[in-house]
């Protein structure tokens, strides 16, 4: 039971990862799919950030007063990953806006149905 509780950050990571994947698969609404994608990516941020924290650790400043410090590298990596995530989300939403003007819908099944009707024309 101690291992279960002491690894809680990993359990949250797994939960977010699975929840994000589930939303992307189960929801037909394109905006909801993007929300799922964001949750999915958030799980990775936690996977990197959580082990970088040492209890009682300070910022990595070289000083006589401090002995224990947290690793700054995961934060830098995840800053990059967050920027990538924002770029993906913004591009995804921009494409959804254009899909909505082209099809008049953002429900996947309606869009597929609209294309199936017009296959031989296009």
């Amino acid at each position, binding site marked *: 039971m101690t291992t279960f509780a002491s690894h809680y950050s990993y359990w949250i990571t797994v939960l977010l990862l699975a929840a994000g994947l589930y939303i992307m698969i189960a929801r037909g609404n394109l905006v909801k799919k993007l929300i799922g994608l964001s949750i999915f990516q958030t799980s990775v941020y936690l996977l990197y950030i959580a082990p970088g924290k040492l209890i009682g650790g300070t910022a990595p400043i070289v000083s006589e007063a401090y002995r224990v410090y947290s690793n700054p590298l995961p934060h830098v990596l995840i800053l990059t990953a967050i920027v990538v995530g924002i770029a993906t989300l913004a591009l995804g*939403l921009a494409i959804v806006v254009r899909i909505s*003007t082209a099809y008049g819908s953002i429900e996947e099944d309606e869009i597929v149905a609209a294309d199936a009707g017009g296959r031989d024309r296009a």
Partner: protein
Amino acid sequence: MKREPVLRVVGKLLIPYMLMFALYVQFHGDFGPGGGFQAGVIAAASIIFYALIFGLPAARRLVPDVVVETMVALGPLIYLGVGVAGLALGGNFLDYFVLDRDPVAGQHRGIFWVEIGVLVTVSGVMLKIFYMFAGHRRP
């Protein structure tokens, strides 16, 4: 919302300080939390705040699309320019040590310009995204 006097006054009072706070965050990045990413978002937020109060057309007159697009492109070029400056002064790409006679001062100088590049890009991208989504009209 242009006719709301409270909003107009609060906006006019706040926006200069928001921009100044962005600069504070930008230059404090050397010593503590801060830097180009946060400063860029704060600076862009002040313009977005202006757009919310005075309307999108007014914001587009203040910071036209051409300026925004130039910012988006200029930022990476500043960043890459720092890298190429390292090359020109005899180091490797993105070498800050050679940017000054004193290697530590060189590191300061390199990261200063890189953060300026980040500030310009991030605020440009934020404004571009805001303009695109706010300016979208259903045909």
